[in-house]
C-alpha cells in the first residue's frame, strides 16, 4: 500500500513540471500587453513603461523568467497579482471555499441522483424509465452550460421569482467568514433567514454545474450495472431470497462502483471547467470567476499560479480515487 502510494506520488513530479510549463506559456501566448492593460485608459509614459517592464522582469529572456517562476514555486511562492498586489496563494485560498462549496454541492447532487437513476435504468433495461433517463442524459450531456443556465434563470429567477440570480447570499445579511463555506457560515451567524438565503442562491448554480456530471454518472452506472447484473454472484444473491434493493443496490452496485468512481474522479476536471462558466454566469465569487477576470486582465501571475493550483487539486483527487478502489473491491488491494 505504502509503496503504491509512493509510486503514485513519484508520477506526480513530471506532471507537475509539465503543468508549470504549460500554464506559464499559455497566458504569455495570448496577445495583449499586461502593463498596458494594467495602466488602463490613462495610458503610461515611455519611461514608466520601461520601469515597469523591468520591475516585473519582462526584460529578461523567457527561459530566465520561467526559471525564476519555478524557483518561486519550489519555495511555495506563486508571486503576487499585478492588479491587487496580493499573493496569488492568498487570493486563491480566499476564493477557493466558494468554488469548493459549489463543486461539492454539484457533485453530491450528481452522485445522489445519478447513481440511483443509473441503477434503476439498468434493472429496468429497455423499459420506459430507462429510455427516458438515457434520452435525458444525452440532452443534459450535450446541452451548452451557458444556454442551460440562462434558461433556468429565465424560468425560475425572472419568471417564477423563486431563486435569486447572482451572488452567494442576499445583501441583507452580513457576517464574518468563519469557514468560507456560506452554508456553514450562515448557520454559524445565527441570523434568521441567512441559511435559507444561502441555499436559495446555491440552487441554480448547483443544478447547472451538476448537469453534465449527473448525465455522465448515470450513464456510467447504468452500463456498469448492466455488466454486473448478469454475474453469477448476483444470481446467488437472488437465490438467497434477498430483496431487489439488496440484490441490486448492494451486491450488484458495489461491484459496478469501480468504473463509476473512476469517472467521478475524472469529472473533477470537468467540474472545475464547468465552475468557471457557472461562476461567471451567476457572479459567484470563486476561483473560476477569478481566473476568467485575470485572463482578461492578463494577470500573468494569477493565471499561471491559479492553473497550477487547480491542476494540483485534480491530481490529489485522482490519487484519492485510486486509493478508494482498494476499499471498494478487495481483489484490487492484492495486486
Amino acid at each position, binding site marked *: 500500500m505504502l509503496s503504491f502510494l509512493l509510486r503514485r506520488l513519484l508520477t506526480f513530479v513530471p506532471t507537475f513540471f509539465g503543468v508549470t510549463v504549460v500554464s506559464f506559456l499559455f497566458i504569455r501566448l495570448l496577445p495583449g500587453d499586461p502593463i498596458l492593460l494594467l495602466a488602463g485608459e490613462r495610458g503610461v509614459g515611455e519611461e514608466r513603461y520601461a520601469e515597469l517592464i523591468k520591475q516585473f522582469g519582462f526584460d529578461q529572456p523567457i527561459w530566465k523568467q520561467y526559471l525564476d517562476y519555478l524557483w518561486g514555486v519550489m519555495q511555495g511562492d506563486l508571486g503576487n497579482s499585478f492588479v491587487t498586489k496580493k499573493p496569488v496563494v492568498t487570493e486563491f485560498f480566499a476564493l477557493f471555499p466558494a468554488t469548493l462549496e459549489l463543486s461539492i454541492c454539484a457533485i453530491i447532487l450528481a452522485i445522489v441522483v445519478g447513481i440511483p437513476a443509473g441503477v434503476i435504468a439498468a434493472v429496468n433495461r429497455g423499459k420506459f424509465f430507462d429510455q427516458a433517463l438515457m434520452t435525458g442524459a444525452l440532452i443534459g450531456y450535450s446541452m451548452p452550460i451557458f444556454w442551460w443556465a440562462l434558461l433556468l434563470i429565465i424560468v425560475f429567477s425572472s419568471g417564477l421569482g423563486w431563486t435569486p440570480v447572482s451572488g452567494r447570499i442576499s445583501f441583507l445579511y452580513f457576517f464574518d467568514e468563519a469557514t468560507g463555506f456560506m452554508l456553514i457560515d450562515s448557520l454559524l451567524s445565527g441570523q434568521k433567514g441567512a441559511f435559507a438565503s444561502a441555499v436559495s442562491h446555491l440552487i441554480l448554480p448547483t443544478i447547472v454545474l451538476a448537469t453534465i456530471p449527473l448525465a455522465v454518472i448515470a450513464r456510467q452506472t447504468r452500463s456498469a450495472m448492466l455488466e454486473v447484473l448478469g*454475474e453469477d*454472484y448476483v*444470481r*446467488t444473491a437472488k437465490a*438467497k431470497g434477498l430483496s431487489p434493493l439488496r440484490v441490486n443496490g448492494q*451486491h450488484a452496485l*458495489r461491484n459496478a462502483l469501480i468504473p463509476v468512481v473512476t469517472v467521478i474522479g475524472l469529472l473533477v476536471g470537468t467540474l472545475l471547467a464547468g465552475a468557471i462558466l457557472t461562476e461567471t454566469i451567476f457572479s459567484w465569487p470563486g476561483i473560476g470567476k477569478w481566473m476568467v477576470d485575470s485572463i482578461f486582465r492578463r494577470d500573468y501571475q494569477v493565471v499561471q499560479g491559479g492553473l497550477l493550483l487547480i491542476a494540483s487539486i485534480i491530481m490529489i483527487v485522482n490519487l484519492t480515487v485510486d486509493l478508494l478502489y482498494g476499499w471498494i473491491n478487495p*481483489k484490487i488491494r492484492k495486486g
Partner: protein
Amino acid sequence: MSLLEIKNLTVEFRTANGPFRAVDSVDMTVTAGELVAIVGESGSGKSVSMLAMMGLLPWTANITADKMEFDGKDLLRMSPKERRKIIGKDVSMIFQEPMSSLNPCYTVGFQIKEVLRQHTDLTRAERQARAVELMEQVGIPDPAKRLNVFPHQLSGGMSQRVMIAMALACKPKLLIADEPTTALDVTIQAQILDLLIDLQKTEGMALILITHDMGVVAETVERVNVQYAGQRVEQQEVNALFSNPHHPYTAALLAALPERATGRHLPTIPGVVPGQFDRPQGCLFSPRCEFADDHCRTKPPVAAGPELGKALCHRPLQQGVPQDQKEVSA
C-alpha cells in the same frame, strides 16, 4: 406427500430470433428427504428448469406449468415477495461455478450471515456462532478465521464448501445442486459429492443433483430423471435405470461410461443437443438415435407408461431391444 411437484413445466425464452423453448413439458416429483438426479448433456435445460422453479430466470423467460408446488405452496400463483421468503430458506441452490458465485466484494462471513439475517431472528452473536458451526459442518478448517477472508483467497473447492454452508444456513427442506463439481479438480469432485450426500442424510433434506455424468449417479442417488433438449425423456429408480434403460438416449449415455466401454475407444454419442435453430421435427433425439426410423423423424413421441420408465420414445427399449408402440401412441 411430495415436497416438490412440477407438472408440464415449459420455459420459453424470448430471443432476437423468436421464441426458444429451453424446457419442454417437464414433470418432476421429489418427496421429502429423497435424493433425485437430473441427468443430461449440456444444453438439455436442466439448469433452466430448476432456475424456473426458484424464480431466478430473467424476464425474457416465459414460464408455464400445470402445477408447480413446493411444500404445499403454489409457486405459480405466488408473489415475488412471498417466494423470496421460501428461497434461500426452505429451498436453496448451489451452482456450477463456485468461484464466480461468491461476491468478490464481501467476506465469506458476511455472505453466510446475510442469509441468516434475511430469514431468521437470530441476534448478531447467534448469527456469528451459526456461521462458525456451518463452516465446520462443511469441512472448512479454522472456521472462525476463514469467515473474515474474501472469496478470491479461496480455492474452488473451498468456495463450493462456502456455497454449501450458505445454502444450509436455514436448514432447507430441499437443496438443488447444479453440477456442483463440474468446475472443480477431479480430486476435489469426490469430496464435495460425498459432503453433499452426507449432509443430505444427516440433515434429512431432499437433494436434487443435476449432473451430466451418469457415473456420478450410479452409487449415490435413488431416482433419476433423464433430460434431453428440454424434455424429460425417462424417469426410473437408479438400479433399474442402469440395468434396463428404456430410452435410447439413456442407453447411449450409459454406454458412454468409461467402465462400460468394451472396446479400446470410449463410445460417444455422435452430434450435439439441438439448439434454437436445428430442432428436429419429430423426436428431438432422432438425428442421433441408432433406432430412429421415418416415423420417429416426423412424429413427436408420447411418453410410455411407468413400466417403461415413461420413456418419451416411439420404440422404447426393453433389455436393449426396441419395442414398437406405434399403434399405441398413434
